[in-house]
């Protein structure tokens, strides 16, 4: 379907076989994309959202009047075509990410002194890192991108963890040091908690190592002007304009099917429709009670939470730029395993975003707020010695967020792809599943979420 087909123009009626009413569970980008496509084709749509806001794993923070930064998903690239089309159809613009100047790297064993290096290349043995990337690229190339569980040798790749793999395959200490930092950045994963198959799939699904890692020319080329959360806000507005209903603060408890209809229950009431779309992350989809029960669960015992805590240190100006620094850093010790300049396009206030990922995210999330702030500010000022005390400090703990249970995306542990993969997009009677984790293209990204919403709407409309 073209972008033009998904514009707020007067709607075609839904085809005869389509359900006349649909309940959508989850008002993130996936659920709202599906909801709007259905509502604009004259389907009666009710969206139920557990939180008091829309947006799911996107959320905006207003750092100055009218200036927003992203506490959750933020970036997109040219290959994210469905997201670009949807943003355009919602009258939203993108702004390029900026990355000029030198990077800082604190990669010593003690996490101590930092080195200043032009570009983004860490001061480690280049041949050893190249060996790591050659092996990862080769692994990613073996994956069946549309059906990772059918990859040759899938059983073995799904049984091993990424940490097991690194232990066997990475003889050089620099590669061993960099690998968990890289995996943390790419997929917010602790290597001990994801299967090799999931790692290889994720890298392949996102467009390969270079594309996933790059800012200009890659998956971090642009941001949504005004914040990625605005996409869900605009979609919610379109849903209401098309006669849809959005009910927030209503967590779904159960989804029951009988006599040709679906009943979705929340603490506030029950909602009947001819079909339902469950568009929440796998761990949350699995926590809903289904009657009749699911033949295959939505998450396994080893399905993990994406381990990301996002920090924002706000300063009057991005002072690092005046000293020739980009704000980019990669560090062996936490909490700030990497930092990036997220100053709004207007140029102020200066925003340094810190990523606390992998195992470090769990440790940091357990600290009292005052200790979180003290540790993050002290490390930022070691990396960028001219920084003043921040005027604001924000912690967004996605790991323990009850209505996300992790971010960027669910982490498939050993055995998960073999068990869950074949039914990832399979309907359960009148219930269908969406969400970025149901998209084999751009899994875990905003683009995957939008694609999953469009897929499920197209299935229901019989397109």
């Amino acid at each position, binding site marked *: 379907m073209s972008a033009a087909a998904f514009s707020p123009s007067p709607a075609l009626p839904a085809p005869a076989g389509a359900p006349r009413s649909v309940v959508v569970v989850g008002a993130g980008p996936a659920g709202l994309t599906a909801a709007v496509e259905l509502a604009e084709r004259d389907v009666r749509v009710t969206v139920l959202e557990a939180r008091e806001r829309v947006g799911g794993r996107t959320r905006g923070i207003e750092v100055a009047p009218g200036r927003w930064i992203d506490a959750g998903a933020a970036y997109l690239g040219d290959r994210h075509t469905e997201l670009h089309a949807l943003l355009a159809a919602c009258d939203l613009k993108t702004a390029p990410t900026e990355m000029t100047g030198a990077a800082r790297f604190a990669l010593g064993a003690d996490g101590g002194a930092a080195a200043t290096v032009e*570009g*983004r*290349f860490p001061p480690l043995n*280049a*041949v*050893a*890192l*190249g*060996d790591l*990337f*050659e*092996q990862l*690229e*080769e692994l990613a190339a073996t994956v069946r991108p549309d059906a990772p569980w059918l990859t040759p*040798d899938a059983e*073995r*790749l799904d049984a*091993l963890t990424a940490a097991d*793999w690194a232990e*066997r*395959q*990475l*003889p*050089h200490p620099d590669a061993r040091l960099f690998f968990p930092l890289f995996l943390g950045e790419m997929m917010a994963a602790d290597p001990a908690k994801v299967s*090799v198959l999931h790692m290889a799939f994720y890298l392949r699904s996102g467009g390969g*190592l*270079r594309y996933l*890692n*790059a800012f200009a*020319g890659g998956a971090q080329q642009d941001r949504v002007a005004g914040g990625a959360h605005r996409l869900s806000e605009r979609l919610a507005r379109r849903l209401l304009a098309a006669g849809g209903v959005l009910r927030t603060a209503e967590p779904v408890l159960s989804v029951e099917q009988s006599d040709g209809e679906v009943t979705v229950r929340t603490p506030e009431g029950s909602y009947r429709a001819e079909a339902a779309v469950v568009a929440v992350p796998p761990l949350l989809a699995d926590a809903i009670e289904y009657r009749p029960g699911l033949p295959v669960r939505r998450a396994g015992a080893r399905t993990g939470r994406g381990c990301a805590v996002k920090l924002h240190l706000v300063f009057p100006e991005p002072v690092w730029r005046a000293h020739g620094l980009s704000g980019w850093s990669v560090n062996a010790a936490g909490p700030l395993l990497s930092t990036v300049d997220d100053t709004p396009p207007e140029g102020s206030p200066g925003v340094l975003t810190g990523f606390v990922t992998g195992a470090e995210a769990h440790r940091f999330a357990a600290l009292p707020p005052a200790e979180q702030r003290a540790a993050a500010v002290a490390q930022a000022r070691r990396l960028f010695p001219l920084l003043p005390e921040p005027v604001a400090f924000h912690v967004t703990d996605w790991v323990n967020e009850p209505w996300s249970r992790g971010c960027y995306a669910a982490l498939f542990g050993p055995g998960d792809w073999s068990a869950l993969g074949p039914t990832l997009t399979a309907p359960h009677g009148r219930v269908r599943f969406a969400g970025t984790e149901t998209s084999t293209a751009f899994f875990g990204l905003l683009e995957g979420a939008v694609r999953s919403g469009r897929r499920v709407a197209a299935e229901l409309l019989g397109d």
Partner: protein
Amino acid sequence: MSLDTPAVPPATTAPPALSGPELLDSLTAVFRRVLELAEVPADGNFFLLGGDSLVATRVLSAVARTHGVELTFDEFLADPTPAGLAARVTAVAAAR
């Protein structure tokens, strides 16, 4: 590479460096592979052809594996073309 194969063997056990046109062909093939391009000229600049520092390390890994020469990232930056890299590999191999 299967999971059971050992990691890249130490560079000293790699075959001796090729020379002249064979070396240039070999390095051009590495550029083509990692840049996913059908054609790369001998004077093609790696970064203008879409390469970045991450992909550059893959070239250095391939050079170490195939030609037994470990170059640094800065050495690659000095002349990031197949011809420039061939000259560097030849010079390092000759100095041993």
